[in-house]
């Protein structure tokens, strides 16, 4: 593993107060109350290092990339391409040709569906799981509608675990792609992605992993995983919104047609024909989100300095203690009880609709996500219209949990 050298030097005790001090927003109050931000799975807050890196870029290095010969443009290009190299190392990809910048996980998946998907036709199948985010459902439904291919869905059980045998049984030589999440955003379930990739490969299918919920919490090595595509967003990784990554294995990307046309993705343009640029630029039409890429690189630096494994261990401790504390709340039902979970707890409270709960918790300074979490099939499976979801990040602490538990007691009072 290519652990950051600073990991070894970092203190053994995880000093969450010091981590929190890096996040200006955590010092703010909500309605006069301490902010207990428990919605990191939707979007993480940004440390000062990221905010400053983006501001510095705007102050001293901004120009368009890959275009000017002047110094400022070169600086911007260096920053942008430097960020690409940073992402390559972060993912363990073989080459920066395999790192495509996108707007985020959703656009990464749509890129694959629009470009690679053009080769699909009737008789072909795509396999997903029941616990996918809408971003890993709808692009494939649209592709199936266009191409005549069929979408298959591997079932889950009442604890929120994937039925791995059923997943294997649904794979066949007709399966062209298996696309699945590494960690469920709605349930927290950690999927057995290695086994899933191996099973899909054995049938000759390509694999796409939605890593949006996984990258902030564990070290990723795409070559070790053996997947063909890996998608994630910067804003779940303590970076800016509007920037994300599609990793694609070079052999696969090379044969994929462009999906959006415009500047930067071409070599030559004439009215008799246009030739396309090399990887990865062929998939990056138009001026990219340069400052976003700079912010993403800064976020990776920051997180690796903190130590992803150490942050993960801290979050798992919070998950255990929060699960125990919430289990004591009368009428509270935890949705998603997989053996291996990310730091996410979805729950319902008897007699209080999740939206009312969200409003009442907000009045106590507690920010949780409420709704269907862009995973309506999961809500239908558990027969709930919506859930409340508390999720933890590297800066979450036990006071957040205590504040949540107290606010839940208040909600029960309001609704008597």
């Amino acid at each position, binding site marked *: 593993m290519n652990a950051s050298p600073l990991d070894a030097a970092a203190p053994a005790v995880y000093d969450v107060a010091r981590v929190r001090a890096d996040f200006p927003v955590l010092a703010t109050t909500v309605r006069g109350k301490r902010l207990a931000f428990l919605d990191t799975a939707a979007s993480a807050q940004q440390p000062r290092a990221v905010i400053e890196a983006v501001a510095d870029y705007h102050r001293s290095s901004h120009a368009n990339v890959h275009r000017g010969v002047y110094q400022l443009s070169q600086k911007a290009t260096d920053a942008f391409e430097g960020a690409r190299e940073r992402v390559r190392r972060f993912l363990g990809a073989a080459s920066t040709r395999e790192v495509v910048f996108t707007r985020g996980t959703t656009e990464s998946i749509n890129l694959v569906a629009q470009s690679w998907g053009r080769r699909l036709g009737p008789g072909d199948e795509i396999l997903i799981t029941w616990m996918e985010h809408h971003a890993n459902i709808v692009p494939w439904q649209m592709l199936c509608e266009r191409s005549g291919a069929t979408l298959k869905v591997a079932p889950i059980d009442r604890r929120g675990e994937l039925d791995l045998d059923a997943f294997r049984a649904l794979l066949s030589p007709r399966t062209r792609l298996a696309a699945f999440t590494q960690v469920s955003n709605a349930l927290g379930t950690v999927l057995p992605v290695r086994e899933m990739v191996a099973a899909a490969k054995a049938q000759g299918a390509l694999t796409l992993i939605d890593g949006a919920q996984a990258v902030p919490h564990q070290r990723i090595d795409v070559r070790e995983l053996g997947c063909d595509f890996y998608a994630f967003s910067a804003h779940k990784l303590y970076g800016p919104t509007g920037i994300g990554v599609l990793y694609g294995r070079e052999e696969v990307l090379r044969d994929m047609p462009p999906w959006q046309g415009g500047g930067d993705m071409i070599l030559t343009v004439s009215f008799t024909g246009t030739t396309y640029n090399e990887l990865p630029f062929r998939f990056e039409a138009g001026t990219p989100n340069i400052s976003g890429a700079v912010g993403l690189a800064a976020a990776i630096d920051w997180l690796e300095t903190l130590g992803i494994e150490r942050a993960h261990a801290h979050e798992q401790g919070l998950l255990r203690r929060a699960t125990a504390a919430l289990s004591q709340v009368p009428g509270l039902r935890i949705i998603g009880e997989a053996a291996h979970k990310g730091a996410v707890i979805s729950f319902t409270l008897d007699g209080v*609709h*999740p939206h009312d709960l969200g409003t*009442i918790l907000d009045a106590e300074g507690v920010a949780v996500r409420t709704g269907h979490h862009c995973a309506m099939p999961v809500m239908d499976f558990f027969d709930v219209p919506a859930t409340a979801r508390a999720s933890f990040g590297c800066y979450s602490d036990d006071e957040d949990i205590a504040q949540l538990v107290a606010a839940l007691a208040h909600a029960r009072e309001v609704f008597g």
Partner: protein
Amino acid sequence: MDLKDLYRDVILDHNKRPRNFGRLDPCDSSADGNNPLCGDRLTVTLRLAGDRIEDIRFEGKGCAISTASASLMTEAVKGLDQDAVRRLHALVHEALTSAVDAPPPEGLGKLAALTGVREFPARVKCASLSWHTLAAALAHRDTASTE
């Protein structure tokens, strides 16, 4: 901003014991409403006598605000003609969206209990869903959405 202003006793009562809950069968008109953001869903069924709402029921799943608003609405519009319903809908809309320090519009009756919602912009759609659905039913459209 005060939670008690949002969750007034009238709202909590209508949430716990929604009035006119269920489905009229047969009915003269019906519509389904849904709030895609939160997954609230409800169905309004109507029996009309000419231009007048003779009977109305609603059913569905939603938060306290959406359930109470639908329940209060069914009580308020029963017996009204369509013009009167439109006028009341406009008043409710004003009550839900006017500035927090503006005096609430007059003529709302029990519906005035909903004025606390305007302090919680994220919840306005919860309160307006039933009214959009009723409007759709009166216009003989099948679905309404708050989007």
